[in-house]
């Protein structure tokens, strides 16, 4: 919402400075988004006269002008076609800044001829787009006067943001009312005197709506004007509209726009000669069409509230009027419409038809139902004043809706809800200034004015009092201290997520955050893309589906980094992946990728590419940090299809509960995504990790044995179709009392090992209990281990 300060002062008697106006607007909740003040930037420019204009000796299109500002004469070279002797111009002199070209003038020689300034165009002064020539002022413009004063530019334009609840401030009058209530001046009364009609209109209106749609248009007031002259509107009106970015069209149309911005009262005018019979408010039939004022043809879906005549639809009620029934310069008889339309139906029609207009904007926020008749008189007066003609007596259909809204208000709520100690009297004063009528003693009965459709409860009344008084006086108070046990702030799930992030960062992965949505065709590659997760109105086709996995986003990030010259990427993200659109379908996943070399090229270490074991290690680190019992996990050589089938696996707790998947990404999937790097990744399903039993912080005393452990090595021949993890499990389980740890220190396949087998070198730490091992003890343990390995995976000791 924009308005010039002079416009505001039509209604607000005030001496307040621009600064104070801006401050007060902000303080009452009318947020100032900008102030345009052409006066400031154009202050140095003067009215001047061209005394002579001769052709430049060396340039056909340039003229050498003698210009006078009343005190001095100067020579200026000018390229404008209209530069000629005798015209009055706007002069800028060396040192003046020309805003439209972002340039400070200085003395110059143009094609060898000295030039001491510039005669400006509208565009150069940011006063319009006109750049066809220099500004020609009226011949009576006083030479030497300030251009700002002469052109009355000292009228700043303020733009404010209006929150959806404040329809009353979509008119300058409402803004003045708020400022007056806040103590900035006095609100001037509106002239709503009646314009007497002199004849009965031959056009009438009816509302033809079924009972369930009667609310769509409770009231339609019309008035006919005969013999009007619809030329351009007067300059002051054009100036006001132009200052707020509206294009003047013709007096009648400008009046409707003006009243809309002046009083928040949308109007419409019809050329009476173009109406076929009478006006009717009805619902549209499917397929009815009309050409609207925006020069587009609209087709009714059926059910919209429309204004029609006996033949055609004329426009969407409260949204847009029709071109064919619109007023032109030839219009002599006009019908004015002042109506009430339902906010929701207006919104729906506007949204579904894709039309945004000032009228829709106001109706969907709810216009003042009690102001229709006065609005009619104000508009009538303007029409008669500016266009002449004779007004008919008003005609109408429907009735002014009853407005009787009261709220019970306990003034102490300003303190107990608003935190500000204000007397009941002060509250009443503020409310009355805003137009509320306060009745009785506390609790008061507060009558809400009809322009405040947003106010309907005690909290709203408290807000009105606070906002006009000002929030600055509310003292800060600390919340009382409450019992809050350490460690209860975060849920177990949040703690897991935090711990996993920190550990993954510490093992060299960079945390990133990527969109929750992605390309559907890529989602399909990652077992997603389900219809239920497709975004109906995506911002781009690249982001049209909720991600089934974080990996594709990370894989794409790898490629982007590679394209930027990174030799390798190590990224992770802890965030949601979506299985379906239910609450449980959103899962918290920690996913990571590694690609390229394990590390930069380095003299001390040969460069190696990352592989499945790097990401398995990451997955285990994450699981450990999240509290998963990693020593109990089973490794399955099965993983989702987007992993390399031979180089991937899952970590499970029991056969069904998959805690993590890891592996190199399937080359086919990468190819489909146009990724030219090999990538390995992992996904840890944090929510699948069972909750840890609440343990005491106390870990108990630790008794460490002084007896020395013994390390024994075994080389087993293991069939290639058996898993090493099963061998390890068997060795570990061979004697749970004495086998302390098992590790694999060599894997060999090739010469000396039978076909279809691998040699797995295992180191076992044996822990004595009670007394040190004898040779016989160790021999017996070794036999047990070999027997267990043999039984479990048919592993033979290599001879």
């Amino acid at each position: 919402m924009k308005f010039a300060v002079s416009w505001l002062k039509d209604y607000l008697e005030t001496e307040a400075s621009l600064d104070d106006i801006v401050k007060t607007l902000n303080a009452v909740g009318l947020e100032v988004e900008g102030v345009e003040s052409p006066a400031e930037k154009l202050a140095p420019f003067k009215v001047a006269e061209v005394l002579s204009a001769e052709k430049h000796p060396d340039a056909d299109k340039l003229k050498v002008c003698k210009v006078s500002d009343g005190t001095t004469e100067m020579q200026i070279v000018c390229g404008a076609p209209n530069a000629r002797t005798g015209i009055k111009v706007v002069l800028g002199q060396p040192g003046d800044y020309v805003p439209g070209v972002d340039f400070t003038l200085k003395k110059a020689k143009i094609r060898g001829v000295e030039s001491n300034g510039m005669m400006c165009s509208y565009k150069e002064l940011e006063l319009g787009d006109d750049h066809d020539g220099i500004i020609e002022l009226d011949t009576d413009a006083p030479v030497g006067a300030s251009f700002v004063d002469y052109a009355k530019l000292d009228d700043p334009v303020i733009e404010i943001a209006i929150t959806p609840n404040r329809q009353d401030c979509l008119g300058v009058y409402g803004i003045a009312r708020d400022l007056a209530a806040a103590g900035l001046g006095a609100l001037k009364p509106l002239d709503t005197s009646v314009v007497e009609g002199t004849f009965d209109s031959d056009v009438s209106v009816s509302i033809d709506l079924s009972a369930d749609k009667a609310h769509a248009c409770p009231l339609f007031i019309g008035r006919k004007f005969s013999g009007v002259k619809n030329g351009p509107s007067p300059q002051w009106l054009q100036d006001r509209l132009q200052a707020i970015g509206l294009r003047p069209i013709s007096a009648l149309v400008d009046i409707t726009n003006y009243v809309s911005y002046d009083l928040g009262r949308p109007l419409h005018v019809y050329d009476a000669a173009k109406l076929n019979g009478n006006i009717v408010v009805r619902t549209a039939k499917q397929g009815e069409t009309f050409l609207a004022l925006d020069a587009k043809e609209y087709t009714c879906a059926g059910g919209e509230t429309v204004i029609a005549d006996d033949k055609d639809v004329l426009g969407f009620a409260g949204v847009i009027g029709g071109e064919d029934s619109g007023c032109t310069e030839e219009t002599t008889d006009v019908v004015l419409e002042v109506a009430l339309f339902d906010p929701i139906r207006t919104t729906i029609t506007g949204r579904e038809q894709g039309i945004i207009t000032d009228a829709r904007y106001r109706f969907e926020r709810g216009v003042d139902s009690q102001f229709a008749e006065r609005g009619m008189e104000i508009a009538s007066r303007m029409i008669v004043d500016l266009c002449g003609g004779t007004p008919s007596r008003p005609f109408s259909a429907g009735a002014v809706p009853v407005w009787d809204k009261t709220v019970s208000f306990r003034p102490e709520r300003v303190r107990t809800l608003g935190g500000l100690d204000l007397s009941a009297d002060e509250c009443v004063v503020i409310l009355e200034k805003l137009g509320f009528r306060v009745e009785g003693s506390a609790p008061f009965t507060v009558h809400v004015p009809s322009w405040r459709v947003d106010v309907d409860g005690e909290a709203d009344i408290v807000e009105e009092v606070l906002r006009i008084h000002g929030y600055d006086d509310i003292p800060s108070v600390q919340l009382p201290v409450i019992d809050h046990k350490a460690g209860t702030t975060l849920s177990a799930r949040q703690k897991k997520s935090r711990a996993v992030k920190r550990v993954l960062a510490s093992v060299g992965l960079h945390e990133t955050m990527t969109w929750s949505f992605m390309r559907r065709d890529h989602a399909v590659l990652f077992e997603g893309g389900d219809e239920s997760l497709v975004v109906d109105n995506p911002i781009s086709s690249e982001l049209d589906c909720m991600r089934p996995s974080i990996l594709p986003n990370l894989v794409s990030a790898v490629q982007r980094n590679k394209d930027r010259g990174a030799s390798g990427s190590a990224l992770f993200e802890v965030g949601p992946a979506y299985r379906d659109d239910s609450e449980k379908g959103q899962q918290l996943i920690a996913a990571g990728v590694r690609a390229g070399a394990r590390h930069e090229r380095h003299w001390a270490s040969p460069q190696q590419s990352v592989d499945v074991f790097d990401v398995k290690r990451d997955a285990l680190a994450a699981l450990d940090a999240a509290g998963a019992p990693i020593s109990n996990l089973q490794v399955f050589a099965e993983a989702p299809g987007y992993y390399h089938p031979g180089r991937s696996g899952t970590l499970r707790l029991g056969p069904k509960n998959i805690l993590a998947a890891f592996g190199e990404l399937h080359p086919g999937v990468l190819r489909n995504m146009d990724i030219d790097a090999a990538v390995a990744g992992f996904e840890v399903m944090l929510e699948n990790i069972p909750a840890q039993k609440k343990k005491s912080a106390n870990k108990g005393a630790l008794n460490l044995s002084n007896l020395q452990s013994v390390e024994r090595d075994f080389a087993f021949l293991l069939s290639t179709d058996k898993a090493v993890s099963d061998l390890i499990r068997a060795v570990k389980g061979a004697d749970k009392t004495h086998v302390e740890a098992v590790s694999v220190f060599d894997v060999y396949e090739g010469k000396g090992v039978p076909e279809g087998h691998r040699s797995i070198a295992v180191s076992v730490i044996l822990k004595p209990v009670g007394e040190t091992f004898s040779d016989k003890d160790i021999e017996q343990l070794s036999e047990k281990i070999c027997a267990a390995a043999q039984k479990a995976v048919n592993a033979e000791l290599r001879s």
Partner: protein
Amino acid sequence: MQEQIASLKADISQQISAAGDMAALEDVRVATLGKKGSVSGLMKGLGGMSPDERKVAGPLLNSLKVDVADEIAARKSVLEAAALEERLASERVDVSLPVMAHPSGSIHPVSQVMDEIAEIFASLGFDVAEGPDLETDFHNFTALNIPAEHPARQDHDTFYLKPDANGDRKVLRTHTSPVQIRTMLNETPPIRIIAPGRTYRSDSDATHTPMFHQVEGLVIDKDTHLGHLKGTLEAFLKAFFEVDNVTLRLRPSYFPFTEPSMEVDVQCSFDGGNVKIGDGNDWLEILGSGMVNPRVLEHCNLDPTVYQGFAFGCGIDRLAMLKYGMNDLRAFFDSDLRWLRHYGFRALDLPTLAGGFSR
């Protein structure tokens, strides 16, 4: 005898000094003190001597044996020291060679800021609540007093999923406020929560991305008022920006779910493109807040004549930008390793009230 011994000793001494390495010295030792060595041979001769001869020769030979042993030991130390010198010289490396750094990743600034926020609010008695990203219309709008076709909905640029068989369609939550609803529906006051998380709006420029992060705050009990909101926000912003003082400006505004509603500006200065919070002549809009609208309480089955409280919502990415100086929100979600290294935090940079939030 005496001359013979003296001559032998001189001879041996000369051999010892001449021994250039450990092997040569060992040869001397074997040739003298070894079983068949010259000194050992003389010692053996003692047995065949008369007691008187032995009395004279014994000490002489013993002394010879000890002297030779000492000289060999002394020579051995010298040779060992020389050998060590030589070895050390040969083991010299160029310590100026660059080493391979320990692997180091980083924590995304949004995670870090979320941790900072949780830490501050933990000290004020708040818990961290969460809710799903794919919300129902009820939680995201209706329960928050934003009915269908309300103009406030248009400001939200909402993303929707495709309608299901019943015609219902899920909303990508446009704010973290639905977590308020979920919390109030499931818990009895007193309630103090913050709810950080992902939010979505169809918007894209340097300060808007289709996905971003918000944190919601909610306090519900019987007597919390606007003064508490002001005090809480001051405490939070002071701690977060690590400044001694913040001055807030509350501007009346409108959110359907709060009444009264206000936007909160914080006093700041813009110095060479850098925002400094805490003093200055400018104001920076930082969050929206207000007292929970009684209708919202009713939607959550709380009696608005008994319960009241405040709520606020704030952009986490924006807080991060203000505090850590990023100028383009889109880069937050681009995974550029150069950006992540520059703006990311070390794994062990855990924000704590005791240790501070930034280094």
